[in-house]
């Protein structure tokens, strides 16, 4: 047990730091990058291209797919270093973290060599299309139909909560190809070209006023059969690969709100007294720090296991669950701490440029996106602790016969 880098990793750290110093601006706070939408998208693309050209994109991917052929420990070192700079390094985490592994796993070699390097450098941006209005936590209950049409497939239906769909060139989409068998067996996974007339993207205005997610409608959208990922009817297995990659991909970038909270406690005075002297603040600081530090160390343990050839299991759900809840609790606590002015959501009047007010309104979404708190608890209980599944009313039924409730 030790904290030391191996000589190889220490060299990589120096190299990464030197490159970042020359190519990015050092952070002076832990605040959000600001700016959303197309401007953020373009800035993200420029950053990814720059790091791809320098050989720092997709560190763990093989070189022939646009990666650097390095280990997950290099990835950790990179994440540790890049967090000190103002970059959009996590802008395309869903495409690269979720869709990338699915393509690597299921697509033919020729397709991989064609698409993955463009994904790594963000020349192509990808989104993931799983959730539907009637298939959230029960995602295998989805209804988007894919029907054979010669060498192509025709897609009809609707997806929802698709991050970045508005600016995506491609997507990985889970569809129903056979409603006459059980819900898990009738699914097929495809890649889809998002830039076609049959695909319509409509941004969703969220409760916080932002527009991060989208609805995606398919009207006879066309997918060539060679864009199929895995067997017809084998989509669920593929989807699980994607979802597991997602949890690993987001476990390092999951917001907790803690660094901003610590910055606030260190710097803010209220009524002429540092808030750091407030016993209630100190109590919360200790509790949240112990959770935050626990997540950091849990991540290190997971990385150690992966580096030794193990796999990142459902334990990755831990970071999602703890981080999302803490983020909301911290935000609420801070708005209370600030007194009646805590409801003001304006950068010039609110500490940390209204980060906590923004979080009060955004954090409910974090507890839902990428698997709800409740789904995370089920995953931990069933897959890690081996507790029995809840009895399912749709078990063994053909998908078309499953009750759906009043519509």
């Amino acid at each position, binding site marked *: 047990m030790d904290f030391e880098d191996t000589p190889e990793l220490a060299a990589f750290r120096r190299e990464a730091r030197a490159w970042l110093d020359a190519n990015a601006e050092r952070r002076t706070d832990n605040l959000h990058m600001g700016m959303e939408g197309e401007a953020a998208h373009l800035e993200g693309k420029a950053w990814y291209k720059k790091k791809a050209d320098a050989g720092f994109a997709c560190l763990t991917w093989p070189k022939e797919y646009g990666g650097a052929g390095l280990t997950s420990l290099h990835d950790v070192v990179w994440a540790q270093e890049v967090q000190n700079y103002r970059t959009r390094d996590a802008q395309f985490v869903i495409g690269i973290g979720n869709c990338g592994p699915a393509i690597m796993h299921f697509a033919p070699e020729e397709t991989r060599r064609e698409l993955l390097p463009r994904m790594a450098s963000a020349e192509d941006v990808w989104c993931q299309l799983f959730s539907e209005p009637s298939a959230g936590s029960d995602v295998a209950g989805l209804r988007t139909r894919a029907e054979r049409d010669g060498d192509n497939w025709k897609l009809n239906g609707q997806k929802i909560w698709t991050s970045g769909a508005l600016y995506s060139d491609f997507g990985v989409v889970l569809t129903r190809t056979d409603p006459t068998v059980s819900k898990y067996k009738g699914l097929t996974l495809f890649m889809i070209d998002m830039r076609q007339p049959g695909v319509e993207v409509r941004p969703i205005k969220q409760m916080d006023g932002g527009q991060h997610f989208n609805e995606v409608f398919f009207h006879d959208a066309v997918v060539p059969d060679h864009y199929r990922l895995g067997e017809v009817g084998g989509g669920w297995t593929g989807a699980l690969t994607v979802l597991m990659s997602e949890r690993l991909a987001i476990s390092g970038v999951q917001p907790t709100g803690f660094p901003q909270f610590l910055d606030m406690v260190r710097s803010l005075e209220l009524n002429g007294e540092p808030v750091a002297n407030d016993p209630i603040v100190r109590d919360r600081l*200790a509790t949240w720090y112990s959770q935050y*530090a*626990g997540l950091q160390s849990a991540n290190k343990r997971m990385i150690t296991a992966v580096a030794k050839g193990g796999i990142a299991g459902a334990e990755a759900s831990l970071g999602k669950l703890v981080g999302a809840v803490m983020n909301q609790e911290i935000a609420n606590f801070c708005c209370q701490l600030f007194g009646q002015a805590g409801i003001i959501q304006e950068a010039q009047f609110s500490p940390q440029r209204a980060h906590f007010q923004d979080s009060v309104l955004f954090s409910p979404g974090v507890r839902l996106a990428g698997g709800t708190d409740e789904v995370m608890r089920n995953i931990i209980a069933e897959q890690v602790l081996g507790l029995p599944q809840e009895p399912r009313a749709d078990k063994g039924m053909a998908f078309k016969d499953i009750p759906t409730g009043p519509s």
Partner: protein
Amino acid sequence: MNFEFSEDQLFIREQARNFLSQECSADVVRSVLDTDVAYHEPLWQKIVDLGWTAMALPEAHGGLGLGYLELCVVAQELGRALAPVPFSSSVYLASEAIKTWGSQAQQEHYLPRLAAGELIGTLAHSEGLGADAVASSVTGDVINGTKLPVPDGGSAHFALVTANDTDGELCLYLVDLQQDGVHRQTLQTLDPSRGHASITMHNATAQALGNGSVGAPALAELLDRAAVLLAFEQLGGCEAAMESGIAYTKERYAFGRPVASFQAIKHKFADMFVALELARANAYYGACALACDAPDLPLAAATARVSAGDAYYYISKENIQAHGGMGFTWEFDCHLYYRRAQLLSSTIGTQHQWKQHVATRLLQAA
């Protein structure tokens, strides 16, 4: 970076678990809980024979010369088995203090005997309700004062005692508990499987630890190290309590299905798992900082302590809940974990105190 114990250390843990599952059943724990004995002597003797008391002591003083990481894995298993022995007092506190700050003569006298289990030592610091105010005092080599609760105070041969010297400075003293000037009285505590006593010193003889200026900073350092080791005991207790709840709710049926299949129960265990894994991760970080003598040991130790205390309280209380009415009986073991959780989050300082340490140390850090 490597965040796992070595193969050898994991082997020691496995050996310890096997040994304790044979030699430290719930019956052994209850034999101390239900009677007036302060600890389980046969188990203590076997632990001594295995060399655990000698583990982290130098070979020159009869020790095995192993490190803190080996001690951590043993601590985890002692905690898992709820071992009713004075290990933490004698090893994490008394032995560590003398090893680090004792004079040559003190080391030569005490360490081989502690290693061989001939002597049991403890730390006597608390003086009753409230936190850490010390009224005990020493003049020359004469000590007066009352300490309570003292873990293993009824069975230990000697104690490290905190007291003020004639300048009013807090110092650590070695006090033979078998001398005439010392009166000991057994205390009933929340966890009677571990003996506690009050100790009254009336013109008793005391010997300063080391050069006589071993005071508050040394005490803080000693407690930081013990905090990491105790966090591993808490971790082991968390694991055992949670495992017992999982086993029970999988087998017990209600409404025609295993109780463990209800989400109300599953989510409870998921939350226990979260608390446990955070505590484990923090304890591992603490172990690493302890083994490397890292500069952030004070923060790492306090964090490990807070995290493990929160987890053990949460898991031990929800484990009772998951067991239903049977969990509230004397017969079921749920209360053994709940009691131990209470004890461990109070000994060497409460959760409240350690949370203050976390806040202070975090805000001091760069």
